């Protein structure tokens, strides 16, 4: 079930991206800017930050499998521990920034905020921000699945070092990013220069703000892709959803394909319900809640979004249609 979001929960921003993409530069900028806010920073390499800041904590990226029979349910044990420790401080924070190593899978970080009750009570995952080196992105895609996964998980993407590539090259990189994740917001940056309001306090995991966050959320579309590539797709329906059938289908889908589905979100027009039903998930983990009321005369349509690997849009659409009244 959904976790109620309260102001007492400290927002956590996860910063991913390949080594050298500009994460540390971005962190240094966030910490040195005069914004009157106080951030705790959890980094994986102590000493890289140029700022002498006693709120910088060194993490070991300890990825733990949950012993609960769910194969892809991994969490960051070090994060659970560090967040618990930070909450014992007298001085409270306006936010926590978590930097991951260049080759880290953002999945375990995100799942920590879905899984651990103590972490959920004290903090809320705000957004996953991925920094991309425009010049080296294609090379990094070829080196392994990490660069692709970091794009797939992102809510916000800083397409950085745009001054090092031509307009043509930049367009190709952006196309490729859009091919993986069409729902993230992309900002072009040089030296990680970005207004902090573009990356902090986005509420990307706030069920109440699912519609607000994504400009393209209501545009559906199917592209042609190679099967094993990570891609994003959405499916829609105009007829009301049968909640029991939907639950059964989504439960089975996540059970079988959860490892391949990085992010999922949806807004459902449930048969007979006056409110929207909203959900979002990371791999097999999912949060859901009743959203805003449908207005009189408003067209009640449902929309599901998936970002993942081996996704067959036509199959998903057909299966979803079987869940309609």
């Amino acid at each position, binding site marked *: 079930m959904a976790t109620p979001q309260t102001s007492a929960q400290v927002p956590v921003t996860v910063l991913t991206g390949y080594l050298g993409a500009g994460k540390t530069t971005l962190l240094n900028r966030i910490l040195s800017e005069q914004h009157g806010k106080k951030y705790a920073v959890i980094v994986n390499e*102590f000493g890289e930050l140029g700022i002498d800041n*006693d709120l910088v*904590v*060194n993490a*070991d990226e*300890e990825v*733990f*499998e*949950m*012993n*609960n029979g769910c194969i892809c349910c991994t*969490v960051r*044990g*070090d994060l*659970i*521990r560090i967040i618990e*420790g930070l*909450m*014992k*401080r*007298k*001085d409270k924070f306006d936010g926590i920034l978590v930097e991951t190593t260049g080759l880290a899978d953002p999945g375990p970080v995100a799942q920590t905020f879905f899984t*651990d*009750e*103590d972490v959920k009570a004290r903090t809320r995952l705000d957004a996953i921000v991925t920094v991309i080196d425009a010049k080296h992105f294609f090379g990094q895609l070829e080196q392994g699945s990490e660069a692709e996964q970091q794009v797939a998980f992102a809510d916000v993407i800083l397409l950085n070092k745009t001054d090092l590539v031509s307009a043509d090259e930049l367009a190709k990189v952006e196309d490729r990013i859009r091919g993986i994740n069409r729902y993230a917001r992309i900002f072009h940056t040089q030296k990680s220069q970005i207004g902090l309001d573009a990356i902090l306090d986005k509420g990307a995991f706030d069920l109440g703000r699912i519609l607000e966050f994504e400009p393209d959320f209501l545009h559906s579309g199917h592209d042609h892709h190679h099967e094993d590539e990570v891609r994003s797709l959405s499916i829609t329906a105009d007829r009301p959803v049968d909640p029991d059938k939907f639950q059964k289908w989504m439960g089975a889908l996540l059970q079988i394909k959860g490892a391949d589905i990085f992010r999922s979100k949806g807004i459902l027009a449930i048969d007979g319900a006056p409110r929207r039903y909203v959900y979002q998930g990371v791999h097999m983990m999912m949060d859901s809640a009743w959203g805003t009321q449908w207005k009189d005369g408003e067209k009640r349509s449902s929309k599901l979004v998936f970002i993942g690997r081996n996704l067959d849009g036509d199959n998903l659409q057909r299966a979803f249609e079987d869940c309609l009244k």
Partner: protein
Amino acid sequence: MKIDLANPAWQQTLPPARSVATDAPVAACAFNRDGTTVAFALGDGVVRVLPADVKAAAPDAAEPLHKGVVLALVGDPAGDGFVSGGDDGRVLRIAADGTSTELLAQKGKWFEHLVAHKTGAVAASAGKSMFLFRDGEVREFGPHPSTVAALDFSKDGSRVACAHYGGITVWSLSKDVVLPPRRFAWQGSHVALRWSTDGKFIATGTQENDIHVWRVAQATDMRMQGYPAKVKSLSWTADARFLYTSSQPVFTAWPFAGKGPEGKPPLQFGDEGAGLMTVVAAHPAAEFVAGGYDSGELQLGDIRTRRSVVLKMADGAAITCLAWSPDGFKLAVGNDRGDLLTIDLRR
């Protein structure tokens, strides 16, 4: 013991107590070796030392000893003061007069857990290592497979068990006979650990809300499930007949006398408190037990009569730590709002 929960006074008035308000969460509390002072580890780096006598006035707050949070605190088993660990990577020995000396510094590490043994030894954990302080020496044990999440001495102080991801590791501390560490494996992350007061069992709480218990000699193990939250507080009774566990609304004790708890339900007793128990502490000698709740309620239970009385009403500030005085008459209590409570249970 002169504590009798059948005494009607328990229902009428709260026992004598002293509460000192601070504005930093309390991470740990402890009495010193002879029970004359009580100390609280605070989230602003201060270790607040107070007279154990609840009628004595509290001296003014001291300067911070640690830069950051004091994460762990024990009574010094080799002196009259305390030993503290902080997220500034330091372990300090604090004398009775409040002066401190640094026992160890590890840059960038957090000293999250400390345990003391009456033989004078103290063990601390930071990152993947365990450090032993004894006879003026520091020895490092490890690295463990992951950060050490809890640790405890064996009954005789000859071994230390460390909890981590994938199980626990038991180290023999002797310098004369160097034995390899023993690993007791159980998948998942172990977040709490207590060695039984008779030395026969080691209990852990896990990330998956279970309890795991090993028989040390036989290396056999058992698992208890059904908790609604992680069990971060475990406490063995002085006679080792019961293991108390947090994360239930009432006192919950697994029976270890005779054939052990397999196939038996836990003993649950007392009045249902507000919320879930966050900390549980068995009395050092008698049949009593103290339990603090996430609501701020505090109860005192008696396993013999299966009664409990309320020592403090719920106030919204979760109890974070409990400690019994060595004579068993006083109880130190800390919460996440910064109240430093000392209760005298004689009445």
